[in-house]
């Protein structure tokens, strides 16, 4: 049976909401295709002037020269305004139909499981600010609203707008499919029976992974109870039994050697310098000998960036509340994995999988040059030594 194009938990949009969401997508597209190139031209011009002094300009030097330029100021203001509008359009759409969505959550088939912890302590790097300007971030779950699925619904709705339809459409499963393609190509012998996704949000990647490995027991971990309630219902309505657990990827409560595969999808850049080695160590602890760790990240590396790429990364870090965005793109994942005890380490760009991958069509997808905008992802993967 073909997978349904739109899952039943996805908040529905009225005529006016569809117009509003279409507008914000068009605005983001305009900014990306008109304003980014204009600022790129200006930034590269400034970089050439600075380079005349002999050294590659630093981000601080670039920022200092750009900060009094109206184009730069307008670019930050309008790009952030569009981001805020995107979230607000999703929030309004979800709040209008919260009662219906909550009823849908209650009527979801009783498959999969959910374990939340009312005393869970949210990591500071998550709690400190609203990540990528999402009101309430991943974790907001106020007392007295313990059955809320709101953050999950808002995230799912906005994510389908954010990528402008280029990350697997409303199923938002391109990154999950890319993790599968990487596994097929680099670790073809692995037949995972126990799978963990760290930072699973609404389970969009995990649904794709479970469909690729139907015999596997799949668990998603995240910091947000509301996200996870929604995720469980979303998967259940799709007929996919997934287990969801609230927890911190730095220190989970899973026993040692529980999983054959541990992966994350665009999570690491939303953690911190301190958290990164701890997460690697935790992956090592919970993996069985011979098990595989895969971390998919944004398709950007600071050491390969031109001056404008750096300025854009700086925008994400400072103005879009992604405080570790730039740091994560500078991190040496191979060294971190080695330090945690891993072997068979790979780090590089992987072509994006445009649909569920098949094992005989993944050769050469990894190790390619970065093809840009949702056509590539950066992947760091490794294996825990066999006994």
């Amino acid at each position, binding site marked *: 049976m073909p997978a349904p194009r739109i899952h039943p938990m996805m908040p529905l949009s*009225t*005529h*006016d909401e569809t*117009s*509003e969401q*279409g*507008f*914000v997508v*068009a*605005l983001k597209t*305009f900014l990306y295709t*008109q*304003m980014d190139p*204009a600022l790129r031209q*200006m930034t590269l011009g400034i970089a050439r002037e600075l380079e005349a002094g002999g050294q590659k300009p630093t981000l601080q030097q670039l920022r200092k020269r750009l*900060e*009094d*330029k*109206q*184009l730069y*100021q*307008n*670019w*930050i*203001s*309008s790009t*952030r*305004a*569009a981001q*805020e*509008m995107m979230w607000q*359009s999703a*929030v*309004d759409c979800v*709040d*209008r139909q*919260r009662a219906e969505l909550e009823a849908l959550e209650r009527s979801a088939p009783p498959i999969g499981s959910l374990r939340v912890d009312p005393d869970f302590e949210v990591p500071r790097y998550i709690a*400190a*600010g*609203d990540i990528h*300007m999402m*009101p*309430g*971030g991943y974790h*907001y779950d*106020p007392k*007295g609203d313990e059955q809320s699925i*709101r953050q999950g619904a808002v995230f799912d709705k906005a994510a389908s707008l954010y990528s402008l339809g280029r990350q697997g459409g409303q199923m938002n499963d391109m990154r999950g499919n890319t993790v599968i393609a990487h596994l097929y190509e680099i670790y073809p012998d692995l037949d995972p029976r126990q799978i963990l996704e760290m930072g699973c949000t609404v389970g969009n990647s995990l649904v794709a992974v479970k469909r690729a490995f139907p015999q596997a027991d799949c668990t998603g971990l995240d910091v947000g109870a509301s996200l996870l309630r929604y995720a469980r219902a979303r998967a259940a309505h799709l007929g996919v039994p997934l287990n969801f657990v609230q927890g911190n990827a730095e220190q989970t409560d899973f026993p040692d050697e529980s999983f054959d595969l541990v992966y994350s999808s665009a999570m690491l850049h939303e953690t911190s310098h301190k958290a990164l080695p701890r997460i690697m160590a935790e992956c090592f602890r919970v993996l069985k000998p011979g098990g595989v760790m895969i971390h998919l990240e944004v398709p950007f590396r600071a050491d390969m960036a031109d001056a404008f790429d750096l300025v854009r990364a700086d925008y994400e870090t*400072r*103005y879009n*509340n992604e405080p570790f965005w730039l740091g994560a793109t500078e991190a040496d994942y191979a060294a971190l994995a080695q330090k945690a005890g891993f072997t068979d380490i790979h780090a590089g760009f992987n072509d994006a999988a445009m649909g569920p991958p098949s094992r005989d069509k993944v050769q050469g997808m990894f190790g390619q040059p970065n093809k840009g905008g949702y056509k590539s992802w950066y992947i760091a993967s490794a294996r825990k030594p066999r006994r």
Partner: protein
Amino acid sequence: MSATVRAAPTGDRRYRIHKTRIEVPGVDPRVDTLLGMVMQLMSEVSVLRERVDAHERLAAAQQAPTPDAVDDYVPDEAASRARAAVRQRMIEKVCRPLLAADEAAEAKQKANGQDRDA
């Protein structure tokens, strides 16, 4: 009035907005706020235009453009393309000064320099 005009969220469901939002360098925060409001207002105009578009298309098809009929109206491919073109034109028109800002400043600077030279 349309059946789907949205009410503000009720008190117990109101969530605070945007924890941590740093200021744009060199920009009066009130200007940043105003720019956000202009963008939102442009969005509201776009929504309104598409409601008008639904009215016109229903009327052209000899259907009564009642609030429910407008809410239920789903544009076909041609109508969607036409709507996208209207959105695009409006965004380009409204946002043009954002792109022209530095060119304008540069031109002014050059003009001042020429005045001095003269």
